[in-house]
């Protein structure tokens, strides 16, 4: 389903949607018998898995990497974003992203989820044209979990220094001004990037490049943490980080195999491909670091696994086992460089490597999808130049709009806590709490 190429997703849809294929891409009311219990069972599960990736998965992954005095505030960001985007997506986000409008943005048909119905007595309910065998409620929810994790990923870039209030305002605007339109261009029937042949199975571009680039811009706009480069800022508890990475790994089965929007052979392939790339990337980062620095680290192997998960995301429905191995090995090594060499070379303080892992991994994955996609598996032709175009446009749009939003928020309420508060730690200063 998650194919930018329109004919591609229509093709992908054929097996899954016997009963409907609407010209205008709007959800429709159908008979309850249209629904596949098996597909629905899997998509309910996949939705739970992707939510699990953000809370507690990502929250822990990030929370373990900050200093103890900031762990609660870091967890709080993911959790609050989860609540915030839930409401935002319900009120207007889903409608603007996934209902017909123009090629640039969707419409207002589903504001407050109006018209998304389940009618018990009539045995009727609505389905979305991208997922004809499951209830629209489940499709909407699955998409919501993607809308939640994307801003949560950004928080890694500005950890340990941003005001909580500014974060909430920024994310509200960013979600509507960046995430929602890009999701519409790429995934909605009729989105303007949908005819350019870019392949993005499960959100490498919409989720990871978007989040990575926004993180990079945020790291630059906010500036470095007080003491960065001089004081020790070692992760306070990598146990949390490893739990988080493990949950991301397991939850990513929902992310990628769920993007088949059915419990079928495609979902199975996507899960398998995801696992292979992730294992390979984890080993690649580990050995790269072992060779370069003399020791294989826990943070390294965990980061490598996440790098592999990111990089395989756009490719998960298009490549075979060998392609997955290659993408895993390459992304593990390149992201190792992204989070170490590149970052130090350019000197920004992307605290938890939102760009170094998600941005770089997303770019690597998007491009390699163009290289390793197999026509027989995905049912579509891939093109490296189309992939590069998708990456470039997303990066440019995201960078510019993110920059503008941050500058506005800074002008109005200020982005950073002051130095003394930063020293004391955000947990106490912003939330009045402390981990013993």
């Amino acid at each position, binding site marked *: 389903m998650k194919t930018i190429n329109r004919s591609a997703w229509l093709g992908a849809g054929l097996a899954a949607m016997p009963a409907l294929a609407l010209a205008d891409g709007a959800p429709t009311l159908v008979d309850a018998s249209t629904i596949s219990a098996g597909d629905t069972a899997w998509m309910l599960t996949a939705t739970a898995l992707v939510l699990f990736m953000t809370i507690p998965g990502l929250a822990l992954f990030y929370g373990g*990497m900050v200093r103890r005095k900031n762990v609660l505030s870091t967890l709080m960001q993911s959790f609050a974003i989860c609540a915030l985007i839930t409401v935002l997506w319900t009120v207007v986000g889903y409608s603007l992203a996934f209902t017909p409008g123009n090629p640039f943005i969707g419409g207002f048909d589903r504001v407050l989820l109006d018209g998304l119905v389940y009618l018990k007595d009539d045995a009727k309910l609505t389905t979305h044209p991208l997922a004809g065998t499951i209830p629209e409620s489940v499709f909407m929810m699955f998409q919501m979990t993607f809308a939640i994790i994307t801003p949560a990923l950004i928080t890694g870039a500005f950890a340990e220094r941003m005001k909580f209030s500014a974060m909430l305002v920024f994310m509200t605007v960013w979600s509507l001004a960046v995430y929602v339109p890009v999701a519409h261009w790429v995934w909605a029937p009729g989105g303007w990037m949908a005819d350019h042949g870019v392949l993005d199975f499960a959100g490498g571009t919409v989720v990871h490049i978007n989040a990575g680039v926004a993180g990079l811009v945020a790291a630059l706009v906010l500036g470095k943490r007080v003491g960065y480069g001089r004081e*020790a*800022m*070692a*992760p306070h508890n990598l146990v949390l980080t490893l739990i988080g990475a493990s949950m991301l790994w397991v939850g990513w089965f929902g992310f990628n195999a769920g993007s088949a929007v059915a419990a079928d052979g495609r979902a199975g392939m996507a899960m398998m491909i995801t696992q292979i790339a992730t294992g390979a990337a984890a080993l690649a980062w580990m050995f790269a670091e072992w060779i370069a*620095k003399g*020791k294989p*680290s826990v*943070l*390294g192997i965990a*980061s490598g696994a996440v790098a592999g998960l990111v990089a395989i995301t756009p490719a998960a429905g298009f490549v075979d086992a060998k392609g997955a191995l290659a993408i895993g090995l390459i992304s593990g090594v390149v992201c190792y460089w992204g*989070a*170490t*060499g590149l*970052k*130090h070379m350019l000197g920004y303080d992307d605290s938890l*490597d939102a760009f*170094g892992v998600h941005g770089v991994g997303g770019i690597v994955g998007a491009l390699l999808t163009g290289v390793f996609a197999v026509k027989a598996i995905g049912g579509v032709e891939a093109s490296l130049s189309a992939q590069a175009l998708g990456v470039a446009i997303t990066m440019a749009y995201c960078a510019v709009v993110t920059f503008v939003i941050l500058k506005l928020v800074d002008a109005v309420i200020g982005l950073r806590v002051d130095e003394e508060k930063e020293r004391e730690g955000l947990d106490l200063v912003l939330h009045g709490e402390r981990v013993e």
Partner: protein
Amino acid sequence: MKLVSAIIKPFKLDEVREALSAIGVQGITVTEVKGFGRQKGHTELYRGAEYVVDFLPKVKLEIAIPEDLLEVVLEAIENAARTGKIGDGKIFVMDLEQVVRIRTGETGADAL
């Protein structure tokens, strides 16, 4: 009375405690501390950022004793705590003017 304060390697704690016990010392107060000294620390590495961690975990024992026990106490600590490798630690001795046992209000050597 004297207050003896000994900085030792953590894994030697049990041995030192037993040695002190053996010579009749009945009370010890132990604190976990970090030591900077000639013994060098280690390097930690997180995503390419190297942190040189200079300090080493040590434990500090504080032992209040009557003056006449000083020599044997020093000896007991030295023998039990010594590995012969750098970082074995130090013993500091200070004068102790007064001691009170809170439970009973006893003071002086009786309170030890």
